[in-house]
């Protein structure tokens, strides 16, 4: 009770400080060239109040204070402590509070860490960021206050959706938000830089660090969500082109484009408008994502809070931000005068343009695929589904030239280049084609596109692999990320092509047998935990090579809310995952058993980690 009050009032105080900060930044912007020390202290105070309010919510969850509506809706006394805490951001209100916490944290760090940049720029960035922050405060207090009071106080809460009670999902939102919200700094800073006409290479070097930070977190956040989907949703897939997944992918694509584009700006002071547009687009896409998820327009696994009023608020807020940025862009932005340099067709900048070109295409595919059904539904009330086949058809063919460009591009020099080591490049190409031909031939996959895709991915793989051992080659960060990407594409392809599965119904004691696999359903045990009962099935699986595995998938029947989840049992090895999941068959003693062998699963995760590692190396690197 007391914590809710504290939390609520700190929120209001934080909101007021936001207003004060906007006022102060306008005043300071006009008058002086010195950063007002009051700004820094107020910014810290704002962070402090949001933190207090966030901690108050966590404590309310920990002590199960059901006079708080959010706690009542999303918690239960029998839940383990860990999930009581993670339940704080496992719901709409709490996750928005977390969003706000990250917003205030980032702007504070920005003020502290930004050196060698004009004071006016810092103040203006703060001003824009505070506009966003105040908008979110209003949104939170108006439509989704996490501290609503309930009377009479209920004895017991409604509980957290069991599929959210999972370690990966406990850290997935914070990590993802660090990425999403990090893009807000890029947005504010791009607007500030445009207003002051200081979009230059020194700004590019400064903002690149922020781009990298949010890019790394976004990458890892998406990865965590994907891993969670793989073992928790019970279908063994890791990416379904679900609208909410797409919504997180779009800012990632924009951010990746920005990351590459900034390299050109850093070096040659051209493409300024494009960098600004991308910076604005990244944050706008993150906001769009929030809008689409929270308004309940989308049909998705992730939609846990939908309320038209919230949707409307975000929509208005979003349009205000877009309007503001367009206004600033058109009135203040000046195209660089030295924008005369002609690009030679074979140069690093051209290859980066090619990257941008393809990335924008991928982004448009994802964007159109996600929003087209919504518009069609509104305009002609025709309901269509846009699912994996659409994305695969439009993206896979374009990946081929993209992968080749990824292999060749980084080897080129700025301004004008020539291909060195031609023999090497060609021989590696031949080897890649031969290997992929061999693979395809050997395993009867007669699709032309797979052969070419595997060859191009292998080509990138070999070239980047070789560059690790090439002493002349300096760009370790880039090479790591590109190598990771080739590994990712290869793992996904092989995973798709060579996965196999068995679906069958079995009773205890029965055996399933086919030419390759023998599945023995040995026994079931029951277990009782604090907030769920579980049925554990024990299987013994023998493959044709005589490898023996014991796997024990689980069915969990949660008490509150009363939902049954199936927990997959996965045996991970370097080469393949063995994945088994069971389900009850209605009114019978049979269990529906789904057993999958998924090669290279581990490598999908590892390669994404490697990609973000590339980002980390680049972040830590001193500029040479």
């Amino acid at each position, binding site marked *: 009770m007391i914590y809710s009050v504290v939390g609520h009032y700190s929120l209001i105080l934080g909101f007021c400080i936001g207003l004060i900060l906007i006022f102060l930044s306008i005043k300071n912007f006009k008058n002086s060239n010195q950063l007002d020390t009051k700004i820094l202290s107020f910014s810290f105070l704002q962070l402090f109040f949001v933190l207090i309010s966030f901690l108050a919510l966590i404590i309310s969850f920990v002590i199960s204070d059901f006079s708080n509506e959010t706690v009542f809706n999303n918690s239960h006394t029998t839940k383990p402590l860990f999930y009581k805490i993670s339940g704080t951001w496992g719901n709409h209100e709490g996750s928005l509070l977390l969003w706000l916490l990250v917003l205030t944290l980032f702007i504070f760090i920005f003020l502290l860490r930004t050196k060698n940049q004009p004071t006016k720029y810092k103040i203006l960035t703060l001003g824009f960021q505070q506009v966003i922050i105040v908008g979110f405060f209003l949104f939170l207090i108006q439509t989704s206050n996490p501290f609503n009071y309930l009377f009479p106080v209920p004895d017991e809460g409604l509980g957290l959706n069991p599929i959210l009670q999972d370690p990966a999902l406990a850290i997935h939102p914070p990590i993802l938000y660090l990425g999403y919200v990090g893009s807000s700094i890029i947005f504010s800073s791009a607007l500030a830089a445009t207003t002051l006409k200081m979009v230059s290479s020194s700004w590019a070097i400064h903002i690149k660090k922020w781009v990298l930070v949010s890019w790394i977190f976004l990458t890892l956040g998406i990865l965590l969500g994907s891993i969670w989907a793989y073992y928790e949703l019970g279908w063994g897939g890791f990416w379904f082109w679900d609208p909410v997944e797409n919504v997180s992918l779009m800012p990632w694509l924009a951010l990746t484009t920005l990351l590459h584009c900034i390299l050109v700006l850093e070096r040659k002071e051209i493409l300024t408008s494009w960098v600004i547009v991308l910076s604005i687009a990244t944050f706008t896409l993150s906001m769009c994502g929030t809008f689409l998820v929270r308004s309940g327009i989308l049909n*998705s696994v992730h939609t846990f809070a939908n309320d038209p009023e919230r949707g409307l608020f975000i929509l208005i807020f979003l349009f205000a931000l877009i309007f503001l940025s367009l206004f600033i862009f058109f009135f203040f932005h000046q195209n660089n005068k030295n924008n005369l340099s002609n690009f030679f067709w074979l140069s690093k900048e*051209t290859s980066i343009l090619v990257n941008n070109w393809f990335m924008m295409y991928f982004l448009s595919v994802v964007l159109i695929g996600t929003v*087209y059904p919504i518009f069609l539904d509104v305009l002609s009330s025709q309901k269509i589904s846009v699912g994996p086949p659409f994305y695969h058809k439009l993206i896979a063919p374009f990946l081929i030239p993209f992968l080749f460009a990824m292999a060749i591009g980084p080897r080129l020099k700025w301004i004008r280049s020539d291909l060195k080591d031609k023999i090497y490049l060609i021989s590696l190409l031949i080897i890649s084609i031969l290997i992929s031909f061999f693979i395809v031939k050997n*395993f009867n996959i007669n699709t032309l596109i797979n052969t070419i895709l595997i060859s191009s991915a292998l080509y990138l793989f070999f070239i980047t692999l070789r560059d690790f051992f090439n002493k002349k080659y300096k760009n370790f960060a880039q090479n790591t990320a590109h190598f990771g990407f080739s590994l990712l594409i290869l793992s996904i392809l092989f995973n798709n092509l*060579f996965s196999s599965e068995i679906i069958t119904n079995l009773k205890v004691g029965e055996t399933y047998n086919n030419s390759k696999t023998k599945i023995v359903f040995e026994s079931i045990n029951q277990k009782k935990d604090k907030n769920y009962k579980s049925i554990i099935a024990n299987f013994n699986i023998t493959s*044709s090579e005589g490898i023996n595995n014991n796997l024990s998938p689980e069915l969990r029947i949660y008490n509150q809310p009363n939902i049954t989840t199936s927990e997959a049992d996965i045996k991970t090895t370097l080469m393949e995952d063995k994945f088994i999941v069971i389900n009850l068959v209605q009114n019978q003693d049979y269990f*529906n058993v789904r057993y999958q062998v998924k090669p290279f699963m581990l490598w999908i995760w590892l390669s994404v980690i490697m990609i973000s590692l590339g980002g980390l190396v680049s972040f830590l690197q001193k500029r040479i």
Partner: protein
Amino acid sequence: MKIFKVLIIIFLLLCFNNLSANENSERNEITKNLRCLVCQGQSVYDSDSDFANSMKILVDKKLSEGLSDKEIYNLFKEKYGYWILYDPGLNKNTYLLWLLPILIFLIGGAIIVKSFILKK
């Protein structure tokens, strides 16, 4: 360097010996492209709901009756509408959906060539 390359190739070949080709049944391919209407964003193939299970049985039945995958898709389309198909196909409702990204790609390419490569 050469030895290194050869080693990689041998390694890769060894890896693939362990893998078995997939005998993906036609049913799986079809059910992957059907939306489970009672679930939140899952395909019939991925879901274990009653609806999905009965759909799987129905697809099996139709396959054994000798219908092609196209005929089965049409059957479901007529019964439940386009909503059930994950592959939106090319028709008058989806021309824009398929062509817009391609168009954006072409325009993007044209812009790049025009303003950076050919510029005098």
